[in-house]
């Protein structure tokens, strides 16, 4: 059996040492657990316990530093691009569906089936993009994803443009992101001294804790959720650790409002 170790390839008791340790470190993948102890083999190769662990640490640090930098730089921009693409794909699906219905009412031809295949394909693409967004969001914004879900978080991120900008937004802005049109309309009416309805929620309306409440309570919940989102964004950006109390307080507030 061959085993890919971080310092080379092991086969029949012999090790062929790697010439690029960082590369072999990232390819040290094996289907089965090794039947020997890697450090014992390694200590012989590196000529001592201290030497073995010193090299291992050095390579591990170098690889991790590189990967972390790559990921943090790119991932939020990648999500922003994905969300935009997702919206286009969704629109394309709806548009195609409409057109194929138009055709079908006149004549159910072979082309209709072709259209349906294409729609199916696009739906699969849509699912794939959604999964990718979810995976990255849990990685770069674990708290936001936990309290608001990947979809809402990704949309907020897209509107803000980057994590850095999202972090700087106040909760009151987060609450109405996505409802700008009606917000500014309301402001314009107020300026003229007329009565105006200020929107209570934008994108965050998609959150089940808001959607499932009676209309009169949604504003309260939206305000509370937006405040928690603002906090979660800051934790994600600066600390990155999960804060369990966030979701808990959200759920409590929701139940309180539902009972009243």
């Amino acid at each position, binding site marked *: 059996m061959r085993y890919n170790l971080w310092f080379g390839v092991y086969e029949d008791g012999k090790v062929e040492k790697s010439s690029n340790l960082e590369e072999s470190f990232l390819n040290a*993948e094996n*289907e089965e*657990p090794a039947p020997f102890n*890697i450090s014992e083999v390694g200590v012989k190769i590196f000529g001592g316990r201290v030497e073995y662990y010193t090299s291992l640490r050095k390579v591990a640090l170098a690889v991790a530093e590189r*990967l972390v930098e790559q990921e*943090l730089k790119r991932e939020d921009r990648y999500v922003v691009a994905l969300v935009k693409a997702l919206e286009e794909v969704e629109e394309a699906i709806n548009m195609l569906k409409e057109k194929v219905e138009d055709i079908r009412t006149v004549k159910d031809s072979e082309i209709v089936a072709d259209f349906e295949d294409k729609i199916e394909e696009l739906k699969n693409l849509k699912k794939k993009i959604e999964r990718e967004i979810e995976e990255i969001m849990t*990685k770069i914004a674990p708290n936001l994803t936990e309290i608001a879900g990947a979809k809402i978080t990704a949309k907020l991120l897209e509107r803000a443009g980057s994590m850095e900008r999202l972090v700087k937004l106040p909760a009151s802005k987060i609450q109405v992101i996505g409802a700008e049109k009606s917000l500014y309309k309301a402001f314009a009416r107020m300026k003229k001294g007329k009565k105006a309805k200020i929107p209570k929620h934008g994108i965050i309306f998609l959150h089940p804790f808001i959607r499932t409440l009676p209309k009169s309570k949604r504003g309260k919940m939206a305000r509370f959720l937006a405040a928690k989102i603002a906090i979660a964004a800051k934790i*994600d950006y600066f*600390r*990155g650790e999960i804060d369990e109390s966030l979701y808990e307080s959200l759920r409590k507030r929701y139940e309180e409002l539902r009972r009243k």
Partner: protein
Amino acid sequence: MKMVVRNVYLSDGMLVTKSRYGSHYGEKVFDGFREWIPWRSKLAAMILKGYTIDFRGEEIILYLGAASGTTLSHLADIIDEGFIYAVEYSAKPFEKLLELARERTNIIPLLFDASKPWKYSGIVEKVDFIYQDIAQKNQVDILERNTEFFLKEGGEILIMVKARSIDSTAEPEEVFDNVLKRIESRFEILKHGNLEPYHKDHLFVHAKLF
């Protein structure tokens, strides 16, 4: 000051570890000791509640879910003659963990997904101890997979289970019973208990591989 675990002391109700390093996450540092805050670390909560583990200080440990290295920094104080393989998948907390790994020579940082141990199977050796704190639905699966790859015969595990991550609708007791049953099938359970009041609906399980 009373020693409760190797390099861990209790001083006026405050838990501290003997350390020649500075503050990592805002904890107080004084005369060669670092405060170990039970609200920030589940391991500290467990020890403060009176359950201790006899570390010898020379163990090889696999730490799954190291996050930004809060608990890890204290474990590294305890295991001052051993090594800790610290696995964390999320890049953001890993930045902070890297700061720690740069100064501590007994930490090997691994940016990998703990649910896919085969990806780092050519890096991590056979270990004496697996510590796992991953608040995920399949956290017991993750533990089992890593045990298969890395835990020595007779090796021990300490897992921190978060009820709400596994099933947010079921009663925590129910979730814990199921987890214990699963762990029992492969391990001898040495001790388990809750972490109240420091961490709500959490269970720690210390066990030994048959």
